[in-house]
Every structure is written in structure tokens, then in C-alpha cells.
């Protein structure tokens, strides 16, 4: 009577023997190493990358190239992220945030105060730049311009991927004046080829005699070499007078034609309209970002998300879907094969004809139709696994059946029957242990198919939107074939992971079934 301990020791010994043989098989070892690396990457994904594969957007410009491409011929025009302003304190939480700006008041008049206000802040964080206008002596119709600007050196010859600025302005008290707010970008360099200083007005707000509040974030994203797309994130409230001067800017090349000194700033022009003129203007959230056209190891996708992060997290998805789907199909195949062979007769006939029929049917159209009707345009990972798993069991069921057919005629099964063992006992004790090595091998050899099928289905559009898989990464860039740095990595990842399972499966086949070559 084998004790539990003895059994454990026996199993351990068997495992050791298996591992020893595996070590001697070069291909098997290669497969195992890749697989172990893939599992380690999948498990430690949050340690390997600080970003979220789906939610962390705008890390860089849209479809940014890998950074290392800058050091190759043709990559000279690529730019990296560039932040002229201190990005830590764009909300003016501390008074020192103002120190980075040049502040000027033209003409220099009395009773215009520019200072830091710790109380009021837009949006939702305290601290802002306060401009108080209490000009009683100036003539009606005169204007005062308060400008807040920052000069910076733009180091790249290429254009940025996205140019974004944001400004928040609050006018709680406005009486007898009109207020105009201009956001501008000035090219400060002068050469013989392009003489003079050129200023682009990006946005202009005009406030009348009422209380007002405005928030604005505006982005210019390079669509291609000659065009840019302009997006406005928030304008609030929609009713106040807004003149978009920057609408005439069609290309980022216009704004940033070369490296050199640039000035970004906000000009607030207050014009006196009545004798009693008084105003308070709060400026906040002043930010300027130049997102690059090169980022990280593998670049970024359309939303400026890190492709390296997506690749890492994709390992998880591929492993989970591949393993679960193949467990499902091997499980179904095992049950169908066992039942079919052991029951025999009409059950066998019906099950095998059904298996043959499914084997003949083209699986992908069937899968697509099933995905479509099962999920009603809401695809999720569970459905994917079930659908993929359900179409992979037929071959294995046939193998198990043929194996069991021969096993059940063996003398030891007859002996077990003679001493009165029931069918479940014989199946569990005598048949199953003899086919279990087949299960391991088939598991390993089914995973690549499942991984590739998942990728193909995701590529065709049947993708779970809450996860990033390698297939989905490819489907997102399917229409942009020139972006080879986004296409090569996921495909290679799929191929390498599949290959590791194939090699592992072949090695296991060699070790576990020395006489029985399943397929070769």
C-alpha cells in the first residue's frame, strides 16, 4: 500500500527524470527558457513599466517612432518631448511658479497690480496669478497690456508631434473695462534667410462687461509633414466671446520651422471704458507641452500610449488566452475521446461523425459568426477563450479515442474488471494515466494555434476593448503600414511565443512518448 509520502516521492522522482531529459534536449531547453521569460514578463509587468497600457495616453505624440531611430540616417528630424515650462506646477500652487515668467506691464501705469494669489484658483486647485486693475486716473479708452511670457530654446530641427498649451482665466469682478486675452508664440530668431521676429496668435478671448470664466486647452498635432490637426479640449462656459486666431495655423512646421529661441506667452489687454473702472483677472493653469515624434523603446500608438508597455501587458493576454483556450479544447477532446472509445456502439458512431463534421467545417468563418452572435458587438476575453477552445478539440478527441480503444483491451483492464472494478474506477486508474502524457504534449502544441487565432480574431476586430493584446496592437495600425516599428514587435512576439510552445511540445513528445510520435 503506497503511502501518500511514497507517492509524492515517486512523482518527484518522475518529475526530476523528466526535467533531466528536457535539459538534454536542445530544442526543449530553448522553448522552456523562452516560456519562463515570457511568464516572468507577464507576472512582473507592473514592475517593468510604470505606465498603464490603455489608460496612460499622450506620453508622446501620436504614432511616435522609437527613440533609437534618431541615431540612424533619416531620423534626424525626430523630436523628443520638450517642456519649456516647469510641468510640476502648472496650476500655480506655489508663488515660485511665477518666477519662471517674464512679467511686464505696458504702459507702466499706477494701480495695476500683478501678484500671486493663494486663495483663488482654477480649476479646483488654489493659487493663481492675480491682476488687479484699479485705474482711476487714466483717460477713458486707454489700454494697459500685462504680458506673461517665457523664452525658451527649442533644440530640435524637426517639428514636434503635438504642441499643446492650456490657459485658465477667471474674471470674478469686471466693471467699466473690457478684457482681452491673447495667447501667442513668437519666433525670436533672426537670420538672413528669415529676417525679423514673427508672432503667431494662438487664441484670443474677449470679455465684455460681465463676470466670466474661461478654460482652454488647445493642441496642434502633426497629421503629416504639411498638416496639423487642431483640437480643443475644454472651453468653458460655451457662451463667452472667443475668437480663435490660431485657426489659420495649418502646419506645425509653420510654428516650429527650426531650432532656436522662441517665446510663449499670454497678453492681457485691459481697456478702460467708463470713469469708474475696476477689474480682477486671475490667470491659472498656464502650461505648454511639446510632445515629440520619438518615444521610448518601441514608440507610441495613435493615442500616444507606450508600445513597450502594451507589448509587456500583451504577454499576459496571450498566455492567458492561449493556455485557457487550449485547456478547454484538450479537456473537451479528452472527454469526447474517452466517452466515445469506452462506450463504443452508437455513442461512438454519433460522437465521431460529429467530430468529423466539425473537422471538415472551416473554423474561422464559424468562429466569426459565433463571436458575432454570442457577443452582440461587445466582445470580451471569456467569449474569445470559449470560441477558440471549442474549435480545437476535434483532432485530439480522435487521438485519445484510438489510444483508449487499444488500452481498454489490455489484460490489466480485464483483470480490473474481473475483480469487480467499476467503469469510473477503470477510467480513472487505468485509462487516464496512460493518456495523460498525450494531454501534456497536446496542451503545449495547441497553445500556439490558440495564440495565433486570438491575434487573428483581434486583428479582424473581435477584440476586448478593456485589454491590450498583440493582435489588437496590430489591428490598430493595420491601416498605417508605413509604421513598421509598430508592426514588427507584436508579430515577432507572437511568433517567438508560439515557437517556444511548439519546441516544448516536440521535446515533451520525444521524452514522454518515445515510441508514439504524434505528428511529425
Amino acid at each position, binding site marked *: 500500500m503506497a503511502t501518500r509520502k511514497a507517492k509524492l516521492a515517486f512523482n518527484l522522482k518522475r518529475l526530476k527524470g523528466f526535467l533531466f531529459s528536457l535539459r538534454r534536449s536542445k530544442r526543449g531547453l530553448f522553448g522552456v527558457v523562452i516560456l519562463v521569460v515570457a511568464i516572468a514578463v507577464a507576472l512582473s509587468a507592473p514592475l517593468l513599466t510604470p505606465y498603464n497600457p490603455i489608460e496612460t495616453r499622450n506620453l508622446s505624440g501620436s504614432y511616435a517612432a522609437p527613440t533609437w531611430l534618431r541615431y540612424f540616417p533619416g531620423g534626424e528630424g525626430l523630436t523628443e518631448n520638450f517642456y519649456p515650462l516647469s510641468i510640476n506646477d502648472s496650476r500655480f500652487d506655489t508663488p515660485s511658479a511665477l518666477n519662471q515668467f517674464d512679467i511686464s506691464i505696458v504702459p507702466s501705469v499706477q494701480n495695476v497690480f500683478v501678484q500671486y494669489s493663494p486663495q483663488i484658483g482654477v480649476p479646483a486647485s488654489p493659487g493663481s496669478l492675480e491682476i488687479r486693475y484699479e485705474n482711476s486716473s487714466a483717460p477713458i479708452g486707454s489700454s494697459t497690456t500685462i504680458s506673461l511670457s517665457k523664452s525658451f530654446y527649442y533644440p530640435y530641427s524637426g517639428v514636434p508631434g503635438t504642441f499643446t498649451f492650456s490657459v485658465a482665466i477667471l474674471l470674478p469682478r469686471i466693471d467699466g473695462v473690457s478684457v482681452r486675452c491673447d495667447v501667442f508664440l513668437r519666433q525670436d530668431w533672426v537670420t538672413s534667410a528669415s529676417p525679423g521676429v514673427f508672432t503667431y496668435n494662438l487664441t484670443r478671448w474677449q470679455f465684455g462687461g460681465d463676470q466670466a470664466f474661461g478654460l482652454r486647452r488647445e493642441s496642434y498635432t502633426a497629421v503629416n509633414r504639411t498638416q496639423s490637426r487642431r483640437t480643443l479640449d475644454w472651453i468653458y462656459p460655451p457662451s463667452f466671446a472667443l475668437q480663435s486666431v490660431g485657426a489659420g495655423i495649418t502646419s506645425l512646421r509653420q510654428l516650429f520651422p527650426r531650432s532656436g529661441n522662441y517665446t510663449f506667452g499670454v497678453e492681457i489687454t485691459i481697456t478702460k471704458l467708463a470713469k469708474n473702472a475696476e477689474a480682477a483677472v486671475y490667470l491659472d493653469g498656464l502650461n505648454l507641452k511639446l510632445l515629440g515624434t520619438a518615444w521610448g523603446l518601441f514608440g507610441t500608438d495613435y493615442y500616444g500610449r507606450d508600445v513597450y508597455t502594451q507589448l509587456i501587458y500583451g504577454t499576459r493576454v496571450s498566455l492567458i488566452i492561449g493556455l485557457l483556450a487550449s485547456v478547454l479544447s484538450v479537456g473537451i477532446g479528452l472527454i469526447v475521446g474517452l466517452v466515445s472509445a469506452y462506450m463504443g456502439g452508437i455513442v461512438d458512431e454519433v460522437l465521431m461523425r460529429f467530430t468529423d463534421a466539425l473537422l471538415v467545417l472551416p473554423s474561422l*468563418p464559424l468562429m466569426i459568426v459565433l463571436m*458575432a452572435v454570442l457577443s452582440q458587438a461587445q466582445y470580451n476575453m471569456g467569449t474569445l477563450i470559449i470560441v477558440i477552445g471549442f474549435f480545437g478539440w476535434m483532432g485530439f478527441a480522435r487521438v485519445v479515442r484510438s489510444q483508449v480503444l487499444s488500452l481498454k483491451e489490455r489484460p490489466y483492464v480485464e483483470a480490473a474488471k474481473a475483480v469487480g472494478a467499476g467503469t469510473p474506477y477503470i477510467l480513472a486508474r487505468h485509462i487516464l494515466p496512460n493518456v495523460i502524457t498525450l494531454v501534456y504534449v497536446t496542451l503545449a502544441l495547441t497553445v500556439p494555434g490558440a495564440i495565433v487565432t486570438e491575434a*487573428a480574431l483581434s486583428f479582424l476586430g473581435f477584440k476586448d476593448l478593456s485589454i491590450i493584446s498583440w493582435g489588437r496592437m496590430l489591428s490598430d495600425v493595420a491601416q498605417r503600414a508605413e509604421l513598421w516599428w509598430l*508592426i514588427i514587435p507584436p508579430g515577432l512576439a*507572437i511568433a517567438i511565443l508560439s515557437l517556444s510552445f511548439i519546441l516544448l511540445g516536440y521535446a515533451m513528445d520525444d521524452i514522454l512518448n518515445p515510441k508514439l510520435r504524434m505528428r511529425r
Partner: protein
Amino acid sequence: MGLRGYIAKRLIYTVFLVLFVLTINFIIFEVMPGSPVDFFIGNARQVLTPEKIASIMRRWGLDQPWHVRYLTYLRRMLTWDFGESSPASGSVPVGPMIMNYLPNTLLLMGLSTILSILIGVIFGVIAAYRRGGLFDSTSVIASLITFSLPTFWMGLVFITIFQGILPAGRIVGDNMPPWNFNFIFGTQISYPTTVEIISRIQHLVLPTAVLVLFQYGNYLLLTRATMLETLTEDYILTARAKGLKERSIIFKHALKNASLPIITSSALAFGFLISGAMITENVFSYPGIGWLTLNAIMVTQDYPVLHVIFYVTALTVIIANFTSDLLYGVIDPRIKYG
């Protein structure tokens, strides 16, 4: 049982298979959540008048119990009465619509199969003949690698490489001329122009290349394995002893005997090939059945069309398998029918 009995048995089995496919097809659309009416009318429910919906339901017999519908459906499918597509995609007759796409797919699949069999067999023969050499190991590794590369990814890489050189991708697919069967069915005879033929060939190049890469490894490994087996047979030794030329030994004596499994496997591979072709077509926007399927699911939600596509693709696979069964019976005189 002779050859005739064997054929009769396969024929009966094939008929059952067709019925099985039709039943599965019916069940999928029947038992899934949502009423069958929703599938047939799709997104168009809002824009249709109740009378129109009622008439569609009558047209498809949706107002009747399931067993009546099943029989009607069987009759329609078996008599090739495919009706109209869903109102969302314009209520056009499905039959001619499919006939505009199916030849493209069959051309693509046929061409790539022939090419990959040629490449696979020739390379496989050379690899088997020079067993253990550099050519042998290189070609085996190359076929294993192309096995594990996803088809659609190979397509994307091809598009990246050949961009601007060969037509590949979304826009060009629309420029392909529609099929014109006037020269078969119509009263007036019209032949395709040279421009049309060139355009068709241009569009075929890249998808065919991808499908050849997808398939050739299978044939190479198979040919290599069977050739290795036959090359050790006694009659090869006899042929050598007779002083026959090596070429004649390889092609006339060895390959002829090794070719049987290749024929079987080419028919069995047909099902896989359909999957590969569907993906490839979508990568290259090649207007075939695979492209139409995805369009019917993702864009027009056209379930009547899907019904027919599924039926027709399954039918092509069934016919391919039946043909290979017949060929097998005819070619190999040693086979025992039964």
C-alpha cells in the same frame, strides 16, 4: 465493395454533412440571444415601417414556428434561393452578390495552393535527397518559422515592404474590376480587357505570396518525410542498379509513390486555407469572401448574407474533401474501399 460502392458511401456521407452544416447554421442564428427577427433586420429596425418589417418576416417565414422555418430554410438553401440581403445593406439579391466575391477567393486559394505545392514538393524533394545537408536543415527551419508566423502579420509586413511598388491595401482593393460572367450566362459576349487582367494579377501578387508562405512549409515537410521513406525502398535500389539516371529515379520512381499523401493533405488543408484566405483578404482589402464576411458582420450586420457565406464556404470545403476522397480511390489501386 468496389469503387462504385465506395463512391456511393462517400456521397451519402457528404449529403449528410451538408445537412449537418445547414442545421448548425440554422441553430446558431436560432438559439442565440435576441430574436431571429433582429438578426434578419439588423440595425434597420428603426427606419422601417411596421408593414415592411411584417413583409420581411413573411418573406423569411419568421412569423412561423421553428420547424416550419427550418424546412423552408433547408429548401431555400438547397435550391440556391438565397433571397435578399438585409435592408441595412440595400436589399440586393444575395446570390449575385456572393458570385461577385467568390471567384476572387477561389482564384486566390487555387493559385496559392498550386504554387505552394510546386514550391513545397520541389524543395522537399531536394531536401530529402540532400538529407542532413545545409539545404535540408535551412529549408526545414524556414518552414517551421513560417508556420509560427501569423498570416495577417506577414501580410502587414509585405504591405510595409512593397508599399508604392505593388498595389496593396485599402484603396486599391476597390479599383479591382467586378467579375463579368456575361461570356458564360449572358446573351452578349464580352471578354475582359487587358487592363482588367493586369489589374487582377497585380492585386493577386501579394495575397498569393502570403498564402504561399502560409502553406508551402506543410507540403515541404510532408514531401520530405514521405520521400525519405520511399528513397529507402528496394525498388529505388533496383532502379539505381539498372543504371537509371538520378533524375528519373527521383521523379519517376520515388516522387510518384510519395505523392499520395500530398494529394490527401492538400484537400484536408483546404479548411485551414479558407481561414488563412479570409484573414489575408482583410489585410489586403482583397474583395473576396473573407472580406465580405467581415463587412457583413462589422459594417452592415447583414445576417442573411452571413448565412449564405457560411453555407457556401462550408460547401466548398466539403466538395474539396469529397473530390480528394474520389481522387484517392481512383489514384491508389491498393486502397481498400470500406
